[in-house]
């Protein structure tokens, strides 16, 4: 009886790729073989075909969605990072506000969306307001936490080397804050995308989420899936790009800081 050599499993990366390929294959084959009705799962090829045919429509919708995401990000990241830096850096503010914000975090922000549509209408403003607020608090909390990890000794050392206050800010505080800021941008963008998509799905007149809902109500499954696919690609692309940028610019941030997944609720 021969001894079996130890079976090696494929590397995790290969395994993941394998899973992805298998899923795509199933997406194509399962509907074609009739295991699931086309209504429930249109084949990958029919989804792509429709996406190609309606390219203009989807492109326009994507532009609307991206615009809303960008605006929401400006609010959430601009405001969130500044607020987080203030709360994280100033002990008095932190002690005062942080527990309050953490408690508010428990409230599902989505209940405010009807308020925004009543106030701002069905157009982009309500989406931007909603997604902006949705992303604001997590970015603020994340930035506040990150600011606190900066070694206070950095500033003492800078002072001992004769740094003036402007120099302390520009040469020490800002570079030391960069990883936190990048993390905030990544988080804010991801949450902005999520917030915009949800709100577009609920009440809208334009955007990819709107297309998704529209086609669902007329039971046009390939078009529904085309919208789903687009959103998947958008959010995954954002994730990969922002991670890559973060890694490249913050290469000196040594291992030991675990990366938190975006706190999405939807």
């Amino acid at each position, binding site marked *: 009886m021969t001894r079996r050599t130890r079976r090696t499993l494929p590397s995790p990366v290969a395994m993941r790729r394998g899973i992805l390929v298998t899923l795509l294959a199933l997406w194509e084959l399962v509907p074609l073989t009739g295991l699931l009705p086309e209504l429930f799962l249109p084949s990958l090829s029919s989804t792509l075909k429709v996406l190609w045919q309606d390219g203009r429509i989807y492109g326009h919708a994507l532009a609307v969605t991206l615009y809303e995401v960008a605006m929401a990000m400006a609010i959430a990241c601009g405001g969130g990072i500044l607020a987080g830096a203030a709360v994280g850096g100033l002990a008095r503010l932190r002690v005062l506000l942080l527990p309050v914000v953490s408690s508010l975090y428990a409230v599902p922000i989505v209940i405010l969306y009807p308020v925004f549509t009543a106030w701002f209408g069905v157009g982009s403003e309500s989406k931007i307001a909603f997604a902006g607020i949705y992303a604001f608090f997590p970015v603020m909390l994340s930035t506040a936490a990150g600011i606190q990890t900066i*070694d206070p000794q950095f500033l003492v050392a800078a002072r001992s080397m004769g740094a003036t206050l402007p120099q302390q800010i520009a040469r020490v505080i800002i570079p030391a804050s*960069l990883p936190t800021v990048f993390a905030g941008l990544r988080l804010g963008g991801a949450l902005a995308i999520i917030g915009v998509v949800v709100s577009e799905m609920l009440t809208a007149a334009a955007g990819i989420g709107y297309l998704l809902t529209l086609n669902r109500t007329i039971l046009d499954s390939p078009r529904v899936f085309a919208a789903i696919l687009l959103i998947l690609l958008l959010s995954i692309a954002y994730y990969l790009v922002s991670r890559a940028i973060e890694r490249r610019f913050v290469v000196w941030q040594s291992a030991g800081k675990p990366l938190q997944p975006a706190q999405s609720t939807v």
Partner: protein
Amino acid sequence: MTEAIAVEGLSHNYGGTVPALEDISFSVPAGRFTVIVGPSGCGKTSLLMMLAGLRAQSQGSIHCLGKPIPEPDPQRVGVIFQEASLYPWLTALENIEFPLSLRGTPKEDMRRRAEAMLHLVGLAGFGARYPHELSGGMKQRVAIARGLVQDPPVLLMDEPFAALDEQTRMTMGHELLRIWSTTSKTVVFITHSLTEAVYLADEVLVMSARPGRIIDRIPIDLPRPRNYEMMATDVFGRLRDRIWRQIRKAD
């Protein structure tokens, strides 16, 4: 005046009420290696902060090279901290250049001087490494290089080797003496380790527990350059013993 550091009647209270230091007076002649030891919380670090101009004392005067030191003066006094506090976004060389860059020193000048310091501390060739790629001992060497790059006549060191393991500590202590011997700087060095104190110092100042006072000045007559074998001698042991007894008495 040959006194590099002159402290007169120094007292300090935390928050105006808690006494931290009490009537401290001592002077350090130029070129001398002085070590301060004392129990935890006796105010050694606060004293050092004041010598560096990083903190203001409640009472008394401090003169460094004949002038008071109300704020940090890196060209007069260099400071090295317990945690190297190197900036992780800068390479070793850039960290050493940092104090020079604050003063707008031209690039080539900075590079030249920083490279020289790197060489002095035995890290030639490691300039392009980032702090997270360096060991604890290497990081402290870079910190020392950074403190030396402006060639200050006075060097203050706050337990710089405390975070290192014992073997690295001994090596670093020896290295420090080598570097110091090539210059004529005045050094004030704080440590918890009595062995380190005796090994490095020309004179050891013993502080009491809070509120910190100077309770003894112990001259260390061991010949220089020091070597490890001295640690096994009777003289060494007696000196260390004397310090220990003083500290125990003070508690």
